[in-house]
């Protein structure tokens, strides 16, 4: 249990009278991919937003390597080592692929006071940008304008940017959304390698992908945690079957 990187302890988020998340707890461990499942409106986005600092929780605490980070805002959490990608592609569409990755890498050594330094001359930042482009397979597109990439490539770029921040906790919000089967399988392969040295939280609708790569699955329904367990346990969990997945999905 020494590699527990991120622990969410009874997170609750209310919007007015509505509880979008009610006492949700989960643990992300290095080397493991934890999937978050749930029907639309189950509170998956609220949960990931609380973990990334985009949304403050109403109650509950968040710990990163044992340190309470509940009060940190999104930039601070990123600097601690929690990176996130977004469900709707969130890049700098007017910049080149390289500049997207370079900006992400620069966030680790910001050097804001070096007003007359040439940003493109900072070797460590540039090397990092090239390394992550190679890692996700975008090296050949380095000088393309990001907005002109295919949807799948933009999703890859999104992951590359998170990697450039050296995050060891990855919060990935539907990285496979809208991808063709070939692109999706390449992404699943990438997730598989990324997991080795990091902890990953994956919010995903694609059941096949989730059951193929997840080490652990948490199911949310109506903002409440219904079950947590291995894919096999979730598959055979009767409550989960009834509440969300539908019986057929399991016998296919």
């Amino acid at each position, binding site marked *: 249990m020494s590699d527990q990187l991120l622990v969410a302890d009874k997170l609750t988020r209310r919007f007015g009278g509505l509880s979008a998340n009610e006492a949700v707890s989960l643990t992300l461990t290095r080397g493991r991919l934890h999937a978050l499942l749930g029907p639309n409106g189950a509170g998956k986005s609220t949960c990931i937003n609380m973990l990334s600092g*985009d949304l403050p929780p109403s109650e509950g605490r968040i710990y990163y390597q044992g340190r309470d980070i509940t009060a940190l805002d999104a*930039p601070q959490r*990123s600097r601690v080592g929690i990176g996130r990608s977004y469900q709707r592609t969130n890049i700098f569409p007017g910049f080149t692929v390289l500049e997207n990755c370079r900006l992400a890498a620069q966030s680790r050594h910001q050097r804001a006071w070096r007003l007359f330094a040439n940003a493109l001359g900072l070797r460590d930042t540039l090397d990092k940008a090239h390394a992550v482009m190679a890692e996700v397979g975008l090296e050949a597109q380095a000088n393309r304008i990001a907005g002109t990439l295919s949807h799948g490539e933009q999703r890859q770029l999104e992951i590359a940017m998170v990697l450039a921040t050296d995050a060891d906790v990855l919060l990935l919000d539907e990285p496979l959304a809208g991808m063709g089967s070939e692109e999706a399988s390449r992404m699943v392969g990438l997730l598989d390698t990324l997991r080795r040295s990091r902890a990953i939280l994956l919010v995903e609708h694609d059941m096949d992908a989730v059951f193929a790569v997840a080490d652990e699955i948490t199911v949310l329904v109506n903002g409440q945690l219904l079950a947590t367990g291995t894919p096999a346990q979730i598959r055979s969990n009767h409550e989960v079957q009834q509440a969300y997945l539908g019986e057929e999905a399991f016998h296919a």
Partner: protein
Amino acid sequence: MTIKTHTAGIAQAVVLAALAAYPLVGSEFYVEMVAKVLVLGIFAMSLDLLVGFTGLVSLGHSAYFGVAAYAVALIAPEFAPANLWFVLGAAVLISAAVALGIGLLVLRTRGIYFIMVTLAFTQMAFFLFHDTALGGGSDGIYLNFRPEPRIGGWMPFDLAEGSQLYYFILAVAVLVFVGIKRVLRSPFGRVLVGIKSNEHRMRSLGYSTFNYKLGAFVLAGALAGLAGVLYAVLFGFVTPELLSWHESGHVLMMVILGGMGSPVGAVLGAGAMVALEEAFSLLTTHWQLLMGGVILAVVLFLPGGLIALPGRMRQLIKSGGPHE
């Protein structure tokens, strides 16, 4: 790409040479007008740092320009010339400090609210100098002597001499231009452009964008202050109008006219604005009506401003070609 940057480099060298040679041929009146364009060019470049690069549309930028101009008038002794380096440094620091104070408050707002609060602050500054004993009322203050650039006992040049004043302003404008170019390619500058493109993403990448925006705001305020100092030195008097929101709108129009997001564009916009005002006011007393028409036409038909004109022409020629 390299040919393009090459052409731009040559164009800049030609323009610089023309500006340097101008006092040799131009009349005193027009030399002063070009100096005014350079001063307003610095002012416009400073605003462009916010509007064109960081995505912060400030309608209160005249506050820093005017505060620095007033600082020169208020610091200068009545019966002797002030030291240029001292008033320059003090006035720019005061502008930067005012920008820091205002920035800490206004940068908590966004969009239309940001525009409104910046406008409110510049109006407060306007009334501070207009309605209190501090600013000498609506008449403003005269500067009895131009400041002296004395270093110890040595006077490297004399601002009372028209052409030397011109060259001093030209030198400052070139320094600001080169400096802003450098800042824009620095890590800090790249972050500003990132904030304009997608602030939310910048935050999730680990940038505390408030601090960056505040840095840009203070830098822009300081440079506007520098322009304000030059303005006061050039014309020898300051009035509360320098701080009014009209002046803020005026400099914003220069940025739009020239093309946002380009220091060259900002200077071009300042030049075009002064030239058009001059030309229209010779034609009619209702010149502001014509000016409004030009701004409208640029916004509608040339959204990139004057700086986008060569590109547009090239495109037109290209698309026109195959039809022949």
